[in-house]
């Protein structure tokens, strides 16, 4: 088991959301889009010169800003 930020995860790699390292507002916003601890997440693409990270959660894709992606801690098997 390895802990890393969503930002560090490789493209096409899967991980499990462990925690969200941000304020209540950020946590709530991410929860509403299905990103919450325990969920499996697949990174679709890396941040490209500071651009967003796109992830797949269940059947949704979510674009997460570069800065936010550094606040999401995932666990990789």
């Amino acid at each position, binding site marked *: 088991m390895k802990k890393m930020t969503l930002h560090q995860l490789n493209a096409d790699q899967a991980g499990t959301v462990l925690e969200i390292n941000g304020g209540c507002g950020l946590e709530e916003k991410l929860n*509403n889009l299905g990103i919450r601890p325990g969920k499996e997440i697949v990174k679709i*693409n890396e941040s*490209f010169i500071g*651009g967003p990270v796109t992830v797949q959660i269940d059947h949704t*894709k979510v674009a997460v*800003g570069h*800065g936010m992606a550094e606040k999401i801690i995932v666990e990789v098997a």
Partner: protein
Amino acid sequence: MNILLMGNPNVGKSVIFSKLTGTNVTASNYSGTTVEYTEGQRNWRGEMVDVIDVPGTYTLDPTNEAEEVAVDMLDKGDLVVNVLDATNLERNLNLTLQLLERDIPVIVVLNMWDEAEHKGIEIDIEKLEEYLGVPVITTAAVKNRGIKDITYHFDYREVVDSDYGSTEERWAHIGEIIENTQHIQDRKHTFLEWFEDATVKPLTGIPIAIIFMYLSFMIIRFIGEGLIANVTEPLFEIFYRPVVTQLSQILGAETFLHKLLIGNLISGTIDFGQSFGILTTGIFIPFAAVLPYIIAFYFMLGLLEDTGYLPRLATLVDNIMHRVGLHGFSIIPMILGLGCNVPAALAVRNLDSKREKFIASTLMAISVPCMAQIAMIFGLLGPYGGQYLLHIFLILIMVWFTVGLLMDKLMPGFSSDLLLEIPPFRIPSMTTVLKKLWMRIISFLEEAIPYMLFGVLIANLLYILGVFDFLATTFGPFLNQVFGLPQEVITALLIGFLRKDLAMGMLAPLNLTAKQLVVASTVLTIYFPCVATFVVLIKELGIFAMMKSAGIMLLTTLTVGGFVNFAFQGGSFSLLGWIIIVGLLIAIRYIPSFGSDFEERLEA
């Protein structure tokens, strides 16, 4: 009876709405706020029922103004039709459980049922009904399936008495529901899914975006020009010309009323583009010259919106938008602004911070010409060749970027980060696209016609009273020296505050050179928004911020207008011009930044 359609964004609520309601649909602002919702009627068992399309929300704990309105509206409803995306049951149930805790009857609609089946998602409806305690209906709204079933439940009035506890307990309960009602079979990736991914990955997504934007542009021009040449102009010539010619003869060419209604006769006949009477040019510009492009633009925009492409564009431009202190989502008001700046100024309110609202509004108002103005630019400059049109857009893009860079550097405060759901690609429902197009055309005409007729009237009165002559001689030398424009252009700048398309029309009789038209078009775009946009911006930003924004606009106008007059020679920028542009962009990099950096932005 009030039926509220509620659900997360992107669940097909609007499609269900347009299938449930008739042609009598109105978009209105929620009182006291600037959030828009749509309302329509349906005849149901001999009774008129109001169906309200509530703004999409993920939660009843509002995080922004649109969500506050959604919660507020609960009090007005007799029944909530909670629309869910069946392919995302788990996330969607969060709102459902929150709704069930409220004291209002709820029925649940699982939309996109066909898509869920296609993706191998099986949901046990009976079990789900047991868990929730309310009727559950499945629909595939785009294919018209299940819409009738919703109406069968319009008189459902049972209120369940549920309490799911804290947020964590609610999610745990949702987990249990999903565990026992949903079964997912893994399916192979389809080509469409591959393409969906390709459109958000920068390496493939950016070329695809360029192709899409280029195609959209070509289609808009094709439809716009086609409608003008084959429909609106012939209609005016065949049916309208005899009417106004007759009127012109009755009034007599030199009378005051003739001047006002018909305008000047150009070599003995009425010229719809140049006569400048209320009933000639005042009617011709909105209906014959601009409306075709409005139709073309909003048709394409509707398609882009309903296929789910725009959020993808937002992620692709996110890093560019960060350079100007915004994030990817702000591309939406910019694109809306290409249709009309008014809805764009309203869309800016969806942004998070005051700083972002200010930057986005100012950039939009400064450098995004509306379709009415673009249509007239096409009409006036089209004959001179594509490179002039291209340069106008190139100049405006550079203005957008430079002013944005400077604002980001010089404004204190922070900007927020992008967080956006990327919906799957969907085939748009033609009913919804056409209904939306119709509403937008109506609102364009309602907005444009009064200002247009008033503008022509004012222009003629000012001209007759000699005010224009006075202004022209006063400001003429300045216009001539800085922008290289003849003194008469001042009248267009004045009227441009009412309608930009009308102002462009006033340039037509002045016999400007192509270069002068380029300068005049850019100056007319940048110097000030039209009064309709101006009023919205004051409401949205406050009078003080708007004055600051207006200052930026005037300063930019002088700089850019003067620069284009100086550096634009024979259809392109001179070498010296390019050196100055590149030098300026490099110099901006070294300006110390007053805005916060990325990390700090996130904390708020």
